[in-house]
């Protein structure tokens, strides 16, 4: 895990287009490796936008994203990629790449230049852990929504992120798959991985061992509860 990762958002404002409304209004928050957080709020409250800014995908309209004391958006491309490879984000609607389930999971390791044997070993582990063995060679366009969701999560977990952001990870999962995912995330939580979950079903997410619950409303944080 190294020294751990700390992503600090300072006075973040964001709008999707210049003439549009503010999706986020002056958000200040941090996310650390080793902590688990739930973000909740109504549709359109800014949860997904906050996740995408925190996971270093979107650049805020104003405000700073400080990552381990570096202003992320002022870093060189090489440094940006290096930090991005330490976090992971899983979309609420899983985006599958063409090809097999295994190819989808391998992709995130192959772009890091990891050796083939190591790629195979890490993929085998995560495929086993998330119960994807029977579908590992299935084409990604023949998966159910729940299977695709688990593959997207496997693709993120296989990179061994220090903080993982999951947008509605339980949405398409049946009870059995939910149990598998809870177990996998609780394991990561115990290993010191930071977990940030947007969920409309906080009672499931709480089984992971949550430290904080952030409530959002109209692009602002309306409440933060510390559970530990």
């Amino acid at each position, binding site marked *: 895990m190294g020294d751990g990762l700390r992503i600090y958002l300072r006075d973040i404002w964001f709008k999707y287009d210049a003439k549009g409304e503010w999706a986020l209004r002056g958000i200040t928050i941090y996310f650390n490796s080793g902590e688990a957080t739930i973000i909740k709020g109504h549709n359109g409250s800014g949860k997904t936008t906050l996740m995408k800014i925190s996971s270093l*995908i979107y650049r805020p309209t104003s405000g700073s994203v400080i990552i381990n004391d570096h202003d992320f958006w002022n870093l060189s491309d090489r440094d940006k990629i290096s930090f*991005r490879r330490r976090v*992971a984000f899983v979309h609420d609607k899983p985006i599958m*790449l063409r090809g097999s389930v295994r190819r989808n999971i391998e992709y995130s390791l192959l*772009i890091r230049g990891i050796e083939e044997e190591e790629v195979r070993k890490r993929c085998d582990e995560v495929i086993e852990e998330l119960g994807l063995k029977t579908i590992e060679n299935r084409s*990604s*366009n023949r*998966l159910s929504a729940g299977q695709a969701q688990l593959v997207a999560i496997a693709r993120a977990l296989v*990179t061994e992120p220090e903080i993982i952001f999951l947008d509605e990870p339980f949405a398409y999962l049946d009870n059995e798959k939910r149990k598998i995912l809870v177990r996998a995330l609780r394991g990561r939580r115990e290993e010191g991985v930071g977990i940030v979950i947007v969920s409309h079903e906080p009672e499931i997410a709480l089984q992971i061992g949550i430290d904080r619950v952030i409530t959002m409303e109209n692009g602002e944080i309306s409440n933060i509860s510390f559970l530990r």
Partner: protein
Amino acid sequence: MYLDSEVIDIALRTIYISGSATLLASLWSIPISYTMAMRKPRSSVEAIFEALVGLPTVLLGLLLYYLFNSSGPLGFLQLLYTPTAMIIGEAILITPILISVSYRYTKTYSKQISELAISLGATRIQTQVLIIRETSAGLTASIIMGFSRAMGELGIALMVGGNLKDYTRVMTTAIAFDVSRGEFERGLVLGLLLLLIMILIAIAIKSLGVVGARG
């Protein structure tokens, strides 16, 4: 039998001319559609390309005839009534189809693929490669549509090709020629053959694996 060596020659020539035109048009259309998808042009630019999809072939044929005839601005190239002129004309004709179809598909998927690639830690080049790979289904669809349009057009083939026997005669001009001299049955056979070739080539391109449906 109508399927004699002349018909086979005509069919092969049609495939060669339409295939070359499609390749040529792809050279500029695909980069343009990717650039448009990345830069989000004004909707008027999209509208222009969509409107040009219905460009009358006789109008384009007339313009090219003006350019290529011996007293025209490009007359010195001596391209009129050659397969090259037909290839150029058909390439111009299908450019709007290639651009608008591939752009529509690329625009839809490039944002989410790009977001996914960034979230997985891809470099700028890896992101571009992934976008191209993942949107290749849309590109192939546009190529098939462009090829079919090129094969089925008559105006340009007639005006800048001239329907010269054993040189520029293609399926559509041969059909028109047969009908004009009352050989309807031969024209019908050629028409069905044209349709069959279009369908077979579309299936072949699809199954070559150049494409695959996006999951």
